[in-house]
């Protein structure tokens, strides 16, 4: 079976849904066929995936020193 081609613009539109596995199997296959032939879109995909991975790392947002302690002190002060 041949996969119907998909344009770069259509690929960019769906990159986020592709990463979240929110696409129909048909569209996913067409995206993958496009990635295997298009270095530009693969670069956009890889870069986006890298950015998402960095965001999900617990080390990104670091709480200020003493944050927990002050939070619990606040709770202790409740009437």
């Amino acid at each position, binding site marked *: 079976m041949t996969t119907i081609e998909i344009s770069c613009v259509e690929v960019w539109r769906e990159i986020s849904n592709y990463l979240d596995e929110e696409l129909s199997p048909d569209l996913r296959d067409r995206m993958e066929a496009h990635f295997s032939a298009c270095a530009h879109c693969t670069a956009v995909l890889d870069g986006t995936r890298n950015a998402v991975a960095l965001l999900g790392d*617990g080390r990104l947002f670091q709480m200020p020193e003493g944050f927990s302690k002050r939070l619990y002190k606040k*709770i202790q002060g409740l009437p």
Partner: protein
Amino acid sequence: MSIPRPLLQTNEAQLIKRICDGEREAFYELLHPYERMIYAIAISIVKNPADAEEVAQEAVLKAFSNLVSFRGDAKFSTWLAQITYNEAKMKLRKARPHLYESIDAQQQNEDGDYSPTDFADWRPIPSELLEVCEIRETLLNAINLLSSTYREVLVLRDVQLLSIKETTTILGISEAAVKTRLHRARLLLRDSLAPGFDGFWIKGQTYRKVRPW
């Protein structure tokens, strides 16, 4: 290893019951896994650590005093995230009403097609490098440069790893809006990390892979 969700929810339900029965100390235990989430949501909206801490404290106090009304329809984490989000928005409104309105009134061009600003194929930045202050700062600055509508969705979905459904509940927007905003936010973030990050990206020329990792 993280605790399986059904077990976590059972534990939370038991903790909530104990707290409502007067055992206040159990509130620390209930809250502990979500401290970072509270802080991340708060700072992504108010943008400075001192205000974020104040928002976190107000949100926690509100959660404590309203715990008895928590029915368990949503997960405790979603409920807590929603309280934090609302407190942060309120803080922003109080502190900068004019700015808030202007940001809110901005028409986001969410429907237009997105074109990447470049096609640099860079070697992935390993997450270990988040230990390096400069790289963390670069990423945080890139997030802060996003408009608030994009930043909020990005923080809930990609930083806190909440589901699309949870994100719609917290923000009060449709699933389609979550997906569109997330999409735009991710691609904008990728763009801001790509060019010039290590000083060797020259517009119109091939990107030189010269990163030290």
